[in-house]
């Protein structure tokens, strides 16, 4: 007889990240997964779900409240008193580094829980990587916009072509050991400061 399916509760304010976790859990064959984004009515919901495993993001400001509820109240039928396996220091470090905490009911066998926690950790890490890449892509895009503006300023003020303007920016960046976007940013800022509208003639 296969073991009873585990009830898993994921508490994460971040909708995208929690969807990624949920997808991972379903791929791994867990069907009894509940995702909550806020702590509204949480005690009642936890009592209904009666989870075996609870995954919470470490940024959640309500973590002390949640932990207290898992440990000291009757919201959970079996007391939850574990943070992954107490003996597994490396797993705990990996979880905290990734920004995830997991609570497991007492008496649940480690080999059933570990894959869930490992999956949560790797998905949290993947999400952080994704966020970082998105942030980089966004600044890349902004960099390109600012370079275009800088080129326009140079073309107008010096009467040069677009290619010449770009070459000038690149040369300046190389000479000053800076990024082209940074040079372009300084140029745009100083042009803004000296814009005709802001000039106060005596």
């Amino acid at each position, binding site marked *: 007889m296969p073991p009873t399916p585990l009830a898993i509760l994921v508490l994460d304010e971040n909708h995208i990240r929690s969807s990624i976790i949920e997808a991972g859990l379903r791929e791994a064959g867990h069907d009894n997964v509940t995702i909550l984004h806020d702590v509204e009515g949480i005690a009642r919901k936890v009592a209904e779900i009666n989870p075996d495993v609870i995954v919470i993001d470490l940024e959640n400001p*309500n*973590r002390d*409240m949640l932990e207290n509820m898992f440990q000291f109240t009757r919201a959970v039928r079996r007391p939850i008193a574990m943070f992954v396996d107490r003996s597994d220091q490396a797993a705990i470090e990996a979880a905290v580094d990734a920004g995830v905490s997991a609570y497991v009911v007492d008496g649940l066998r480690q080999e059933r829980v570990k894959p869930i926690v490992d999956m949560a950790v790797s998905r949290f890490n993947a999400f952080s990587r994704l966020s970082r890449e998105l942030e980089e892509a966004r600044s890349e895009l902004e960099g390109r916009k600012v370079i275009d503006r800088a080129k326009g300023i140079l073309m107008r003020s010096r009467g040069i072509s677009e290619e010449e303007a770009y070459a000038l920016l690149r040369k300046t960046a190389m000479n000053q050991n800076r990024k082209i976007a940074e040079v372009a940013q300084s140029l745009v800022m100083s042009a803004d400061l000296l814009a005709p509208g802001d000039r106060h003639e005596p």
Partner: protein
Amino acid sequence: MSRETITAGFIPLLDAAIMVVAREQGFADEEGLELALVRETSWANIRDRLAIGHFQVAHMLAPMPIAFNLGLTPLPAPTIVPMALGLGGNAVTVSGELWRNLEAEGASADLDPRSAGEALRRVVARRRSAGRPLLRFAVVHPHSGHNYELRYWMAACGIDPDVEIDMVIVPPPLMADALENGSIDGFCVGEPWNTAAVKAGHGRILTAKAAIWRSSPEKVLGVSAGWGEARPDTLAALLRAMYRAAQWCADAGNRSDLAAMLAEPGYVGRPSEWMLPALSGDLQIAGDAVTRVEDFFLPFAKAATFPWKSHALWFYSQMARWGQVEHTPAHLATASGTYRPDLYRLALKPLGAALPGANAKVEGALRTATPVGSAGASLTLGPDGFFDESLFDPDQIDAYIAAQAR
């Protein structure tokens, strides 16, 4: 001399002041320490990051390290307490509606815990006979001075907080909102979060920690036991830096600078006017009404940074009282061993610091400010009384716990 880096976790509260000042005013630097401060969102995060070595030390609720060492928390984090981070600093705030009910039942407006508590007992009884739901009070953590002093106060006024009150946990920055939207009726929290609720017009300060138990412990410097053992000299240097920082915090001339420092976005991140009531002791209790509370928050005077074993043991007695731990000789020894006045003495003796002659005292025995023997600078202790005038003698802890058992 090579510089050492210490990473410390803290929660955005006024009583992180000593730690913040140790860094910002250069006291850590003078000891050859690079003190990195990391703001955290929960006490559970502080515990976990200390347990896995991200933090060597942290701002902690005074009972937390005792709970860790007693194995009451999901992740074990062996922790020692070689220094306290001041005395007092909390208050009990209630909603406008509950205040009107309390006032009608005779609560005085002067923060007196006795009249407020007896009025609360009558309100609780009226609600029960009217079939209304239990009043809900929030504290910040089950292992906190807030939880134990609120329960102590209620119990001493004839209210059973386990049965007659719905006690919940809410993080400090969310207390004022919870009071406003009616999800709680009152709370016990550190500053500036009582002031925040009063300034927002949602709450009235009913009484203060300093009125329930004068000169009582609140936050401590929690130190990873393994790190402290491996780096005794670094730890001693940190204690010296923090002792000087505490002295700086107590100087009234530094008050506005300190308030501005704590108001910075990386620390408490709230207006500096919110920090001033706790620092001056002139609490804005409702609207424009200001009431002076003696010894509301003491960062330095009266041995405010000394880690008294009697403080650790009182918290332990309350853990036993409220069913968090079974009272056994082994548990008692663990609680007592968590606080390390020996390390405090060793580190601060060279500074000529005021060092009490004993490691424990009978809490509540000093009815007035009393000069006491000191191995360094002169020292005055007390008053340190409980509002109900009872005494806690750590040598008679069995009898104390037995008398409080229900």
